[in-house]
């Protein structure tokens, strides 16, 4: 119990003093996971919508593949991204292994199937005739897709939350492709793991609490938007 109390005390202290290291780790976490989520949104919403609207043989198989991908184990993603980014790997020329960019890449790979799957489900849950109604209102195909995505925005926000929540709390891939380099690619989760193995449980708990708070506030903000967007 002492340990938890000490941890909370330390977390409070680190927070109120704006400890520069903790601050930079927190900001990097936000930056990496935020960018990864953004990338996954761009890809996931496009692919998810396209899949929901298109009819082609093999669609069921592809959908089941994406649904499986929604639960991709981060370490597996980390492993493959690492192998790809090795100097000797197919993407080695990028020279981004052990950089935040590599972490963004790995996290985007983790989040994209989640966003795609949720988009797919959200668009498919809309009334089937809605598409026809939008077209009948004179929409071009692009306008139709855009309006459909707007109509599905509430479940899509849930997709944003799921994607962001998935990557910000993920450690396996980040540590593998980022390397947990101090002041460079160290994020809240990898720092927590390291501080735990260093025996600095108070700092680890503090970082854990900051991670929880951050996840909580981001979800709070998104939930606020969701509630506000739902018209009176």
């Amino acid at each position, binding site marked *: 119990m002492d340990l938890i109390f000490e941890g909370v005390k330390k977390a409070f202290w680190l927070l109120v003093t704006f400890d520069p290291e903790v601050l930079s780790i927190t900001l990097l976490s936000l930056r990496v996971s935020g960018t990864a989520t*953004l990338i996954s949104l761009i890809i996931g919403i496009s692919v998810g919508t396209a899949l929901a609207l298109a009819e082609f043989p093999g669609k069921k198989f592809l959908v089941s593949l994406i649904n499986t991908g929604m639960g991709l184990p981060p370490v597996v993603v980390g492993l493959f991204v690492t192998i790809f980014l090795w100097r000797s790997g197919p993407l080695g020329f990028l020279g981004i292994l052990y950089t935040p960019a590599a972490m963004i890449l790995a996290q985007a790979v983790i989040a994209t199937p989640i966003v795609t799957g949720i988009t797919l489900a959200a668009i498919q849950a809309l009334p089937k005739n809605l598409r026809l109604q939008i077209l009948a209102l004179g929409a071009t195909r692009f306008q139709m897709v855009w309006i459909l995505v707007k109509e599905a925005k509430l479940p899509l926000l849930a997709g944003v939350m799921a994607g962001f929540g998935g990557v910000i709390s993920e450690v396996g891939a980040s540590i593998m492709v980022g390397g947990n380099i101090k002041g460079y690619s160290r994020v809240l989760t990898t720092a927590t793991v390291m501080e735990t193995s*260093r025996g600095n*449980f108070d700092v680890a708990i503090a970082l854990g609490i900051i991670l929880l708070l951050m996840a909580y506030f981001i979800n709070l903000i998104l939930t606020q938007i969701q509630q506000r967007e739902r018209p009176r």
Partner: protein
Amino acid sequence: MKNTWLIIILYLIIFSPTLGEARKSIILATTTSTQDSGLLDVLIPIFEKKTGYFVKTIAVGSGLALALGQKGEADVLLVHSPADEKKFVAEGYGINRRIVMHNDFIILGPAEDPAKLKGAKPAEALKKIASAGSLFLSRGDNSGTHFKEKALWKASGLNPEKEKWYQQTGLGMGQTLSVASEKKGYTLADRGTYLALKKTLHLVNLAEGDAILLNIYHVIEVNPAKWPKVNAAGAKAFADFIISKEAQEIIKGFGVNKFGSPLFFPDAGKKEKELGK
């Protein structure tokens, strides 16, 4: 809807991540013990300030560190698995293997010491653990510590691999120590990590001070002849730095204030055989 776009654009401006690297970087593959002890956190900023290089420290076991070097995925190694290191250099993967520092391994266990190995020589201590069937926790991760432990078992003429009381954690040094502490088991650890974590552990030092327990760290530059992409200049700069007088002084004083005794002993320029005497 317009606000949403504004937020996205602002986000991109403020948080636009640095892709790739602005500075020349070196990948240092090292053991968890050097990172977990905090030594690198002190040394690397000084090196970076002096040379302008950016060091990416990948803290893994010695086995993986050597494997990364062998593939040319790292530029310079700081490891403690002498037998494998020699092979690594002999096969032409590494050059300029130089001694950096040492500390020693110790055999730790619960204060109750059920196998009664206090004061025993290392090989004897392991025999006692085996005959008492007391829990022993092995790193099991091909790290320098794991190799050392295997060598010790071999020296005592035992093969514990399939025994019930022998468990492999597959974790780093710090985590293996806390597992041993929680499960009241014996384990082998480097003194540096043990001292750094001592306050959180319920483990005591039971066997130490034998030449066989020496834990020697070498710096090795990955051979650029084999892997052209390797940052040879950076690797050499780092290796030269860590055996420089300045770095050696820091190593000597590291941890004295916090733990009462140094965690590592600087050895630059010495021969392996001279150590422990």
